[in-house]
């Protein structure tokens, strides 16, 4: 694969003093995004890197509850409403060394749908945060706001439970995310129009997959078609299957990987799975993070493995050395 942007994978940037953002999404509420984000963040902070967890669920922020903390004095809404100047001012300490937390807004006016300028300002603030790792916990749904936060990172992680409803949402989410991404990279008006059309599931042009879109765009302008093809190749989301009960649940990850590639042309890294574990439920009830409360539980071990895979991901190491 040829890199046009010249900046493949930022996964190990943090390991050499740079900064890495992981965005955690998936479209479906209740799939365990916040649970995964919090526990990944804690595992990561143990490596000595500075980690900040950001709850971008504007309107229904509750990441603090997972950490047993009460709603803080300063949140993202203070930043948006200019009561503070820097995102640093809304990073709150946790009891865990190296782990900071930014709580989303529960009170923001029309919070779930901030206006475009507000959102981009927020994204600029996030990008300016000078720490090793930033983990973004996204809200549910496939709205533009959620998608735009999802897309700010090259490390886009999908959390999926092995249920038809969640899988259905995931396919819709990833398709929308790709269309949203490419809309930003093309300037051709006609192609932009087609992308808008593609966002509608039942569009009149019959665009169902990225392939369909690329074909139509290529008919208008060959170089745009090629550009989109490159975007598709470098899109590469990562997948975590949560609440796995059986071996066939585990295999769903591999099957989705295969279906994504064959039908959408999207390569996906299957990071791993987290087993269904009563201890997860108990830890949430107690408002204590699983990896601290039950470090020996099966689910904790799964999360540790995923953290390692994310940090040591070979393609990333290769890229940072090359």
């Amino acid at each position, binding site marked *: 694969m040829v890199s046009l942007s010249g900046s493949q994978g930022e996964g190990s940037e943090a390991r050499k003093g740079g900064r890495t953002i992981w965005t955690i999404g998936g479209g479906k509420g209740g799939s365990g995004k916040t649970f995964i984000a919090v526990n990944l963040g804690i595992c990561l902070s143990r490596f000595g890197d500075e980690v900040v967890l950001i709850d971008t669920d504007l309107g229904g922020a509750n990441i603090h509850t997972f950490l047993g903390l009460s709603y803080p004095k300063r949140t993202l809404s203070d930043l948006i409403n200019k009561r503070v100047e820097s995102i640093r001012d809304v990073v709150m300490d946790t009891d865990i060394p190296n782990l900071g937390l930014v709580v989303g807004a529960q009170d923001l006016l029309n919070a779930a749908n901030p206006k475009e300028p507000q959102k981009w300002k927020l994204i600029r603030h996030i990008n300016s945060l000078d720490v090793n790792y930033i983990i973004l916990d996204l809200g549910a749904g496939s709205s533009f706001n959620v998608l735009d936060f999802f897309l700010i990172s090259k490390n886009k992680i999908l959390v999926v439970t092995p249920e038809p409803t969640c899988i259905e949402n995931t396919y819709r989410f990833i398709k929308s995310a790709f269309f949203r991404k490419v809309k930003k990279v093309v300037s051709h008006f006609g192609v932009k129009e087609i992308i808008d059309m593609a966002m509608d599931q039942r569009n009149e042009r019959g665009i169902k997959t990225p392939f369909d879109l690329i074909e139509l765009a290529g008919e208008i302008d060959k170089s745009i*078609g090629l550009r989109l093809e490159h975007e598709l190749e470098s899109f590469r989301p990562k997948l975590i299957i949560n609440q796995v009960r059986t071996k066939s649940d585990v295999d769903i990850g591999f099957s989705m990987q295969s279906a994504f590639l064959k039908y959408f042309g999207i390569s996906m890294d299957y990071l791993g799975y987290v087993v269904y574990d009563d201890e997860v439920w108990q830890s949430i009830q107690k408002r204590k993070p699983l990896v601290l409360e039950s470090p020996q539980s099966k689910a904790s071990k799964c999360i540790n493995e995923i953290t390692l895979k994310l940090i040591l991901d070979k393609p990333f190491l290769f890229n940072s050395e090359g």
Partner: protein
Amino acid sequence: MKRIKDQTYYELLEVGRGASTEEIRMAYRREKEIFSSTSIAIYSLLEPEELKRINATIDEAYRVLTDERLRSEYDRKLNGLGEKGFSGEPLETSAIREVHPVQEEPGGIAFPNGFRFTGASLKGIRESMGIDLKVISKKTKINRQHLEWLEEERFENLPALVYIRGFIMEYARALNLNPHRVVDSYLRSFYQWQNKRKV
């Protein structure tokens, strides 16, 4: 990155060209499971019609690749294509069609083996066929300026390699030349230029 209908049977079953019958059998079972109508992993992804078509292609891939005679016939066809795959519908093994019915000899000129397709020679071929660059631009949807640079091998003005490759493919098709042969030959000039630049 190809659509299912453009994938080779090996790509479809996700096995290597040298896969054993046993490997193919296992791969076939796996693919049938993924694309079964009750598979959760593809829930909501495909229309029933699409699913039926994909399953038929997987069945056909299995039938061909587990039959020694059909497989070697299929391999021969693939080799002839330089492993670039197909355009169009999946092959019918009963009567394998010519997949790239390209006429390699426009105006009766035969290109001998080893003929270099460079910017200049492509321009020459185009002009000898009496085709204006405007026509190529319209046909390929490639900007005329880019086409000129391709013919002049002004690589420093052109976008990255992926684009050049794509452009030349289209250019070759528009002239009814074998796109793969033209690209392989043309890009030698590109690599030479690239190497020179590194020194």
